[in-house]
């Protein structure tokens, strides 16, 4: 098991490592030096934290093992001050001699103060809040550089971090209730709750350590630990003889760090840390073919005939424009939907299956138009089309393109001169000129679920057949069938102990086995019900586990940071292991679910989403999602759902929550692409707060065609 986890991690990291450039991070993007990461995958010494933070945006995976304890931590530097961590831990035979104990937890760390000449950096951290609380602890720590290559840290810990040499809580001065920590009855199978009343309560203890950067690559660390590992030592997982830990780390390259530590006087531990930053791609971007340059019009004085408007009256003009534009746009991978024209204005609508940033598609289309559209045309109107719906319209002056192609600051100036409006309140085109009606294909796939309570990695690989038929723009028949070839999905079989209808807790039954799986068979209609409004109705087999009807309306003006949506679903659970069958017995669940959603895009790529409504187990509540979306397609976020299902009814985990990472392949290969892959990691999948997963939700489809995404990536217009 462990070997496999390492194998996957190593393989992934190897791929990343080989693509890392020889140039250091600092040279390339001016990213600060990275702090030493501890066994917990957060900045620190060996087992104890320091007050330093990772560079903004850093995403690290640390996998470590010592004394029967394995930890895999995914840490994300949400903002320069805030760090979020998801951790999966395994402890050999902790509660059950037959079985390892698996635990999933979240940490949050906030840097209160930056280091100055006289003041140390100060951070406060919450470990394992809202999880099982097996690792529950809080700390405040200060770190100060005392020499160019040496820094020291001193901290005060609570909870688990006060289990060694704890003393009466100094916060008792404020209120004597701080002196006792409410005891969580922890059995190893039950859940912790999201409780604030134990934070910073109970005894406190001091920890501290030293980090010495002996060379640019080699670091030595030593610490005094205040974690007694009471449960582990009592059950003989390992023996704790000393509170002093020490060790060394070596930075193999920008991506990989290997560490070895002596822990608690008896154990030797090792950690491999893999780091990447979405702001720093491994390959140069922009290696796609250069755009067609702007072709300026001839001087109207010297070549007045070229400026004649007579062409527009000729009957052959329409087919000629359609044909030349279709062919010219196809060289850039853009698909023409419609063309309309007058002698001074040409309007095109097009699909963009190639460029992840809409601005690049618009910029390339506009330059192509300068080469094929008669000189008398001064205004270009380019409308983007998604699933048959016209989304955003860009109105550009041709003379601006000619003037700004090589002008300083041309990105901002062209953005300022482009009129960006909603293309809505119009029916879909009756016919697409060049969009293929039918597409189908066969691709390999890898489907995985990470950190399942029984098995850290569950996956299956195989081939996926997809077909899409769009008889008229916006009317789409979509089918996706996958045939697993190899997987380990059979390794988990936990009969659900849920007291709720089994709407998600038996999800494993839907992915297990090597029979073909119908992932989707839907007929959908996409339409514009009005200005700034988008609509979708989908019917059929919506996802692996549910079939039914789903409808959605989204309000999203092209320049608004706020979007609102309403979604309604009437679904019935499907039968596991059957292509078309509907669920019976424990799978005989039907539900009417729906949500009102608000989306807000903050500055800096931060995104918040609030969904309020009814969930699959007919529970009512809301989901909060917070994410950071990098301007190159990366997105890292977390969500939590709170419904009227009590934590006892919910079972392990108390409430539905998780983290997700969206990775664009274009980041690795440097070529533009609209595709990306999202991995969702949930500590545990239960029945409370569960939702139907409908593909092509409108906000995800529309957001890159509207602001702020457009403006933030307008630099791509001229690429």
């Amino acid at each position, binding site marked *: 098991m462990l*070997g496999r986890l390492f*194998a*996957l991690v190593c*393989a992934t990291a190897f791929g990343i490592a*080989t693509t890392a450039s020889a140039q250091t991070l600092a040279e390339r993007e001016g990213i600060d030096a990275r702090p030493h990461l501890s066994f917990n995958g957060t900045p620190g010494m060996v087992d104890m934290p320091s007050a330093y933070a990772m560079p903004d945006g850093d995403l690290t995976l640390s996998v470590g093992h010592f004394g029967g304890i394995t930890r895999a931590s995914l840490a994300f530097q949400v903002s320069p001050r805030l760090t979020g961590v998801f951790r999966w831990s395994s402890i050999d035979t902790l509660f059950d001699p037959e079985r390892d104990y698996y635990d999933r937890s979240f940490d949050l760390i906030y840097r209160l103060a930056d280091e100055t000449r006289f003041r140390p950096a100060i951070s406060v951290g919450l470990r394992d809040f809202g999880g099982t609380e097996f690792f529950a602890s809080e700390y405040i720590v200060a770190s100060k550089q005392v020499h160019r290559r040496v820094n020291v840290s001193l901290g005060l810990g609570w909870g688990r971090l006060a289990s060694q040499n704890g003393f009466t809580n100094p916060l008792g001065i404020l209120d004597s209730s701080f002196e006792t920590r409410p005891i969580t009855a922890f059995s190893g199978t039950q859940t912790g709750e999201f409780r604030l009343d134990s934070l910073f309560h109970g005894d406190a203890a001091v920890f501290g350590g030293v980090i010495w950067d002996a060379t640019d690559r080699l670091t030595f660390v030593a610490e005094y630990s205040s974690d007694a590992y009471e449960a582990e030592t009592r059950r003989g997982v390992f023996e704790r003889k000393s509170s002093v830990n020490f060790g060394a780390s070596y930075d193999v390259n920008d991506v990989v760090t290997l560490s070895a530590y002596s822990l608690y006087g008896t154990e030797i531990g090792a950690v491999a840390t893999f780091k990447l930053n979405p702001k720093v791609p*491994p390959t140069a971007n922009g290696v796609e073919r250069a755009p067609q340059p702007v072709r300026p019009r001839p001087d109207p004085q010297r070549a007045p005939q070229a400026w004649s408007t007579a062409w527009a009256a000729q009957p052959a003009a329409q087919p000629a424009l359609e044909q030349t534009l279709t062919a010219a746009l196809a060289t850039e991978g853009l698909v023409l939907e419609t063309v309309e024209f007058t002698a001074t204005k040409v309007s095109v609508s097009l699909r963009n299956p190639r460029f992840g940033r809409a601005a690049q598609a618009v910029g390339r289309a506009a330059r192509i138009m300068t080469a094929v559209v008669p000189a008398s045309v001064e205004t270009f109107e380019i409308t983007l089309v998604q699933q048959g719906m016209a989304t955003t319209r860009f109105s550009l002056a041709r003379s601006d393109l000619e003037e700004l192609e090589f002008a300083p600051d041309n*990105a901002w100036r062209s953005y300022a001169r482009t009129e960006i409006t909603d293309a809505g309140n119009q029916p879909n085109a009756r016919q697409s000129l060049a969009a293929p009606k039918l*597409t189908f294909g066969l691709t390999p796939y890898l489907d995985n679920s990470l950190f399942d309570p029984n098995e850290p990695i569950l996956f299956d690989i195989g081939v996926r057949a997809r077909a899409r038929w769009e008889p008229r723009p916006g009317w789409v028949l979509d089918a996706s069938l996958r045939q697993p070839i190899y997987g380990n999905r059979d390794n988990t079989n936990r009969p659900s102990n849920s007291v709720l209808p089994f709407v998600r807790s038996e999800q494993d039954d839907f992915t297990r086995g090597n029979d073909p799986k119908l992932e989707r068979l839907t007929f959908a209609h996409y339409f514009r019900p009005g200005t700034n409004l988008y609509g979708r109705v989908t019917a059929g087999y919506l996802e692996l586990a549910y079939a039914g009807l789903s409808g959605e309306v989204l309000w999203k003006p092209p320049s608004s940071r706020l979007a609102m949506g309403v979604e309604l679903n009437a679904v019935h659970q499907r039968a596991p292991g059957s292509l078309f069958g509907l669920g019976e017995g424990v799978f005989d669940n039907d539900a009417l679910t729906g949500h009102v959603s608000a989306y807000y895009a903050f500055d800096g790529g931060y995104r918040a989403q609030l969904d309020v409504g009814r969930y699959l187990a007919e529970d009512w509540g809301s989901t909060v999602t917070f994410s950071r979306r990098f301007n190159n397609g990366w997105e890292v976020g977390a969500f939590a759902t709170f419904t009227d299902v009590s934590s006892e009814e919910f079972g392990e985990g108390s409430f539905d929550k998780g983290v997700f990472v969206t990775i664009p392949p274009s980041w690795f290969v440097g070529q533009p692409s609209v595709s990306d892959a999202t991995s969702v990691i949930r500590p545990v999948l239960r029945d409370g707060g569960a939702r139907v997963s409908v593909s092509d939700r409108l906000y995800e489809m529309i957001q890159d065609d509207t602001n702020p995404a457009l403006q933030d*990536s307008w630099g791509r217009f001229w690429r």
Partner: protein
Amino acid sequence: MRAGLSSMPSTLRTSVGGRRTGRPGWATLMAGLVLALLAGCGPIYSYSSAPAIAQPPAQAPTQAAPTRPGLRALVASVNPFRREAELPAPQDILTPEVLARATTPLLLMQYEDRVGWALFQPIVQNGDVLTWLSDSGESLSFDSEGMLQATRGLGRDLMTADTAPITRFLGQGRRQGTDLLRVQEFLDAQNTVLRMAYICDVTDAGVAPRRLLNATPRLRELRETCTGGDGREFTNLYWLDPVTGLLRGSTQWVSPENGRVTLEVVAQ
């Protein structure tokens, strides 16, 4: 990218098919990862129905002319999964006899810091700026004095360059100058425009034999030494005909990642 499997580093390739005792899932996982990688890059098979209108034969808006190979290897050099191709030196291929047969002007670009060269031919003039295109899809744009204005397709490109002071300076036939402003723009990985300003001094390094592709004529070298607010320094070299003052060749800085390129029009 479908060819990615065969062109991966041999260590990785060995792992895909290799067997390791005690780690049954290893090889499979590796294969799965590779497959996942492929999934993001290309299908095994795909079909698209014909468009509703009859398409004329795809007529590229730009006419790419036959040029020598070389640029693909150059692109491959930024692709870490590919082994750098053995690239012949340009003078071995672009002999005077070969160049004499050229029907269009040809521009040779050679990287200074890495192996790679490419041939470009002019495609569009917009105002003062002439854009040259290579057959593998890179483009370079120059103003009337031969100052590099923009690159595309090299990766981490020069998006724009404001060289008006130095262009005017050279246009006046001057040889010594200080405090000439140069502004260059790049795109970072988050598509943010990075604008870098440099203060440049021009000095005359005198007339001496200068090594060009197929000759070593006596040319005047002007050195433009630039210092940026970011602490970066670079020097552009311009070789002028001592009699006519025309630019015969240059070495110009493109961007932090691309370094300098040497440029010469090898066929008129």
